[in-house]
C-alpha cells in the first residue's frame, strides 16, 4: 500500500526564520497525515499507512520532518485530529475532524464553501460551515456506509488494479449491471460473481463505483447540499466516485486546488488551529513579559 505514502516540502521557506512553527496530525482509519506550517505557510506534508494509531502518528510527523532538518521539539504547537486523535502522544490538544475538515476546506477553497463532504477510509461525513470555516452542522455515515474508502481499496486489490487508477477505469463504461448499493460487502461479493461470469472488468469496476457513489449520495442528500460544495478525504481523488456523485446529486464540486491534496485537508485544519493556539500563547507570553 505504499502508493499512498508520500512526503513533500516547500524548499523556499526557512524554518529558522519562522516565528510560529506548528503541525496538524490527522490519524485516520486507513492513513495518517501530517501538515507543518511556518507562520501559516505550508512547509512540509506527509501521508503514511495507518497500522496502530500511536505508531502511525509518530510515523506521519517523522516523515514530514525527515527532509526539513526540523526536530519534533522545534515545533511550537501540535494539534491531533482524526479517528485516532487521542493516540497522538506529542499533541497537547486534540480537535474533532469535523471542525478541522471545515477549517481546512475554507482555507483551501475560500469563504464561499458551505458544504464539505469528507469521504475517507472508514467514515463519510457531511459538514456544513460558515464563511470563516466554522462547522455548524454535520451528518455522520450510518453504520452500513462505513468503510467505503477502505472497501474500494480492497476492491482494487481484488481486481488487481492500483487504487490510484481504478477510479479512472470506472469512467470508461456507461452501461453496466447494477450491484447492491446497500452494503459494501454484498456489492463486492456480487462484483466477484460478475467477473467470474465474464462480464468485462471495466464494466464491473464501473458498476462498483456507481453503487458506492449511490451509497454516499443518500447521506449527502439527507443532510442537504448548500453551495459551494467541496469534497475532501482520500475518495476526493477517485474520479469514478466523484463523477457519479455529481451526476446523482446534480451538483458540481469545486475542483481540487493544485497545491493541496484533498486527503490533507483535515490535517491542514488541525495545523491552522495549532497556529492560532501558538500565536495566542506567544502574545500571552509577550504581554506577561511586557
Amino acid at each position, binding site marked *: 500500500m505504499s502508493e499512498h505514502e508520500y512526503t513533500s516540502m516547500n524548499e523556499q521557506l526557512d524554518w529558522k526564520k519562522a516565528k510560529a512553527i506548528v503541525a496538524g496530525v490527522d490519524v485516520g482509519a486507513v492513513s495518517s497525515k501530517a501538515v507543518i506550517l511556518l507562520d501559516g505557510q505550508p512547509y512540509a506534508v506527509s501521508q503514511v499507512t495507518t497500522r496502530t494509531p500511536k505508531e502511525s502518528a509518530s510515523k506521519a510527523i517523522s516523515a514530514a520532518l525527515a527532509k526539513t532538518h526540523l526536530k519534533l521539539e522545534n515545533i511550537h504547537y501540535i494539534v491531533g485530529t482524526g479517528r485516532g486523535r487521542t493516540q497522538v502522544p506529542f499533541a497537547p490538544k486534540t480537535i474533532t475532524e469535523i471542525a478541522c475538515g471545515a477549517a481546512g476546506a475554507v482555507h483551501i477553497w475560500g469563504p464561499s464553501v458551505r458544504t464539505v463532504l469528507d469521504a475517507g477510509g472508514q467514515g463519510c461525513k457531511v459538514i456544513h460551515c460558515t464563511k470563516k470555516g466554522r462547522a455548524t452542522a454535520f451528518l455522520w455515515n450510518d453504520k452500513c456506509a462505513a468503510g467505503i474508502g*477502505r472497501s474500494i481499496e480492497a476492491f482494487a486489490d481484488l481486481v488487481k488494479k492500483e487504487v490510484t487508477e481504478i477510479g479512472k477505469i470506472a469512467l470508461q463504461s456507461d452501461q453496466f449491471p447494477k450491484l447492491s448499493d446497500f452494503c459494501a*460487502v454484498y456489492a463486492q461479493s456480487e462484483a466477484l460473481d460478475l467477473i467470474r461470469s465474464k462480464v468485462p472488468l471495466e464494466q464491473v469496476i464501473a458498476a462498483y463505483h456507481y453503487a458506492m457513489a449511490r451509497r454516499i449520495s443518500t447521506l449527502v442528500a439527507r443532510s442537504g447540499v448548500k453551495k459551494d460544495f467541496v469534497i475532501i478525504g482520500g475518495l476526493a481523488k477517485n474520479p469514478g466516485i466523484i463523477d457519479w456523485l455529481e451526476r446523482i446529486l446534480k451538483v458540481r464540486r469545486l475542483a481540487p486546488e493544485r497545491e493541496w491534496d484533498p486527503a490533507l485537508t483535515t490535517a491542514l485544519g488541525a495545523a491552522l488551529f495549532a497556529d492560532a493556539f501558538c500565536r495566542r500563547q506567544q502574545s500571552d507570553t509577550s504581554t506577561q513579559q511586557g
Partner: protein
Amino acid sequence: MNKGKILAGLDVGHVNTKAVMMKGQEILGYCTVPTGFDVVAAAETALNHALDTVGVPRGELAGIVATGIFKDMIKVPPLNVTITVPDYVADAKGALFLNKNSRTVIDIGGNIHKAIRYDQNGNLLDVIQNDKCADGLGIFYTTMAKALGVSEQELSELALRSTKKVSVAIHCAASAESEAIDLMCQGVDTADVADAISRFMVERVAAMCTCMSLAQEIVVAGGLAKSKALMKHLPGLLKQDVSVLDLPEYVGAIGAVMSYEGGK
C-alpha cells in the same frame, strides 16, 4: 473402495482451489492454488501441480471428481470433468474418511461456513449454512490480518497472547472491521483486538450451529480450522468438544474422491 485406481479430487472454492490425489485409501499428494477470476485455469493448475508432486502422468488418472461452489464451471475443456458431488456430501465423506468416529463436520471456508451431520456411512442427516450477511468469514480474516499489518498465522499467534477481553460487533463483518479500527484508535492492545476479531468470527459460526443439533464427534474443516486462535474459542461457545481434522482444507477434495462411483 476404489481398489488401486488413482483418482483426483478437485474442490473449487470461492478463494482457493484444492486438488488431492488418492490411490484407494491412500492420500498420495495435494495442492492448493488461489481460484482467482479464471476458475478453469485454477482447477487445471491445481490438478497439474498435484500430479507433478506425486509423479503420476495424466494418462494414469482413472478419474476426476469435482466439488465446491464452482464445480460446474469445470465441466468444459480442457478438464471436461463429468463427475461432480455436492459440497455437503463431499464434506461428510471426507470428514468421515479422516476421522472414522466423526458424525458432524463444521467447515469454515473462505466465503461459506456450514455444518453437516451424517451417519456412520457418511449419509447426510442434516445441514446448515451461513446467511448472506455472514458470507466471507475467511476473506474477512485475511482483510483483518492486512489491516493489522500481520500475516494470518501471526494474527492467530497474536490473538493467543491477548490478556484483556474486548469485543467487536456481532453482526456484520464491515462493522466489525470498523469497530476493530475504533478499538485500536482507543489504544487497545493489538493482541486484544486480534482476539476480539477471532472471537467475533467463532461467535458467528457458533450462532449458525445453534440451529442444528450436533452429534459427537465434532470435527472442524476448512482453511480457518488452522487458526489456533479460532479453535481456542470454538469448544467453549459450542459447549462441546471439537477436534481439528488433519489436512482440514482438503476435506472436500478427499470427500469428492470418496464419492467416486458411489464410494464403492
